[in-house]
């Protein structure tokens, strides 16, 4: 699971771009499962799911929308009602809310390859 050192983040959003390319074969950072939030000029902060072993988001979800698929947590978008309880429950601020669907989404780790981690020019992430 990737641990982000926010101090190293420069806010380039490359993680978001490569995420959309990898998963959708098109370029659209708004589709990414990782998100950079800017507080200009002092901070850029990455939101990314750590794929916890005992996830608080699963406990918080009343609709059983967060499932494990092939070992990875995923939000079933059909079951999700966008109540945002998972977003509040995550102790690591790791749940991204899609700007397009307004629903929460979780990083699927690119089957453990984490392209965002590999492409990050300032090495914000450490794989644990």
């Amino acid at each position, binding site marked *: 699971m990737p641990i982000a050192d926010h101090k190293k983040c420069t806010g380039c959003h490359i993680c978001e771009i490569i995420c959309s390319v990898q998963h959708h074969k098109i*370029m659209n950072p708004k589709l990414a499962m990782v998100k950079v939030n800017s507080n200009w000029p002092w901070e850029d902060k990455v939101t990314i799911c750590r794929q916890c072993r005992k996830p608080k988001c699963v406990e918080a979800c009343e609709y059983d929308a967060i499932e494990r698929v092939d070992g990875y947590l995923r939000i079933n978008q059909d079951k999700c009602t966008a109540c945002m309880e998972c977003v509040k429950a995550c102790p690591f601020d790791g749940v991204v809310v899609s700007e397009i669907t307004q629903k929460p989404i979780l990083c699927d780790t690119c089957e453990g390859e984490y392209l965002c981690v590999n492409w990050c020019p300032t090495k914000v992430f450490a794989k644990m």
Partner: protein
Amino acid sequence: MSNNKYFGYAGKILTVDLSSSDYVVEDTPFDLIVNFMGGKGFGAKILYDGLKPGCDPLSPDNIMVMATGPLTGTLMPASGHITLSTKSPLTGIWRDSHCGGFFGPELKMAGYDAIIIKGKAKKPTVLVVKDSKISFEDGRDLWGKLTFDTQELLRKKHGENCQFMCIGPAGERKARFANIVSGGRGFGRGGSGAVMGSKNLKAIVVKGTKSLNIHDLDGFMRMCREAYNELTVSPDTGGGRPKYGTNSIYSFMIEAGAHPVKNFQTGVFAAVKECNEDVLDKKYYKRHIACFSCPINCSKASRVDDGKYKGKFTEGPEYENMWSLGAQCGNSNIGSIIYGQHLCDEYGLDAISAGNVIGFTMECFERGILSEKQIGFPTNFGNDDAIIKFIEMMAKGKGVGELMSQGVRQMSKELGKSTEKFAMHVKGMELPAYDPRGAFGMGLAYATSDRGACHLRAWTLGAEILDVQDRMDPFATEFKAELVKNQQDFYAVIQSAVVCLFLNFGLTQRQITRCIQALTGIKEWKTTEDILKIGERIYNLTRLFSMREGISRKDDTLPERLLKEPVNEGPTKGVVVDLDTMLKEYYLVRHWDKEGRPTKEKLAGLGLEKYAV
């Protein structure tokens, strides 16, 4: 998901008429794409065809073209840029400028390659573009507000995920070198902020959710990966620039005598020990900031921790402003430079022109042309309090600030007394931070730049000063014409693609061409020659634009100080620029006649025959 016809393009152009609060959305024409690519190219074509010769830049007749290019907003490194072209109220000729950050990518995600703005709103207005929803909002409550406050208020209203650009009080009162600010960056040079102010347009909000298609996905990803790797290992884009920002060249320029001091009176900066990139890095830089998709992160957030400017901060200061508010004014107080740059951004003034004019005013004061009574306070070189006061006076149009805010050309015209000899401008645009007496190529670059004295149309310092292996003689005229011409053409491509010029310092022209090819698949753009021809076409068209406004060989010159008045100390002692030799060769290389007019044959070769004059 995606509505675009062409790979790499959003596929639509939004044309807004502020006079009638109306708009149209049209397909981006393929012949515009294939001949002019995007960004600056779109601007050149649209403005040449759309503007009447001699039109007042501050009248509703002027047009603003904000355009992205195929590479903007993609995985391509440093693709966060956008170009703004309009007729300049500072120079009266062609101008385009380029803003980093996030506005360009967001505009493309909203589905537009470009926004064309015409007319004049009846009252202060905010243009809001959210995907296909376009609206005109009342901007009266924002009028008079500083740029950062304006953006904060807009963010509160429209949400975190929007991008903004706006003008400050300087643009509202049409100061001739007012800029437009987006985030912490801006469209700097040539007074685009005044044009926006003259249209009563306070701000633009954009938000997009659409996607871009890629022609050869695997190839493009591989090339971008290679590009990232090369930028990371280049000593410039992977070493000096990420660490020091654009100030990575500061000491090199000082050593070469190419960093002008006290309004170009000398090339020796005595205070360099307390004012250089190492001091900045150790004492002021707090973190690195990048534009969209950029691994270079040349931008820095700086804060002053002690002294009389304690607590002041800025995104920067970058090399140009370290000079304009620093050595140009004989000032080595970095705190005042940081605060001065922040003020320029807040009020919406181009900090290069602002600093240049302040240095000129200081020289006028020291020569007794302007008195303490006229100005209101003493303004010797090195007076940091005066610099701060001048910025506010120019922004608000108070006292001598009103005259200063019209630019150094107009100011020297009104003052007379041979001040034109040291009014440091070309075609009305104030000189930036390189002294051509320390690098002749920059003399030719300034004299022939299409928007007046500018370092971003050709930047010869790499070849003349920084290159370790095969450095050109900076004081020779040979080969400078070819160098400048090639750079001007390729930079026009970069500014139409639209990506950051700093890619030049880590990637080759061939590499960038291959990236464009993989992304767009446009078959007319196979080789570097194809791409350079687009650049040459654009550069010739902007020349024709300015010729239509009265520009000719007589204007392709430098301030008298650089041609006749040598510096009497340091590495450039005794040197003046031999411009004539380089200029003659330049016209030959460009296939322009002796008067600097593109020949019919040249224009025909570029497909511009109908523009022949």
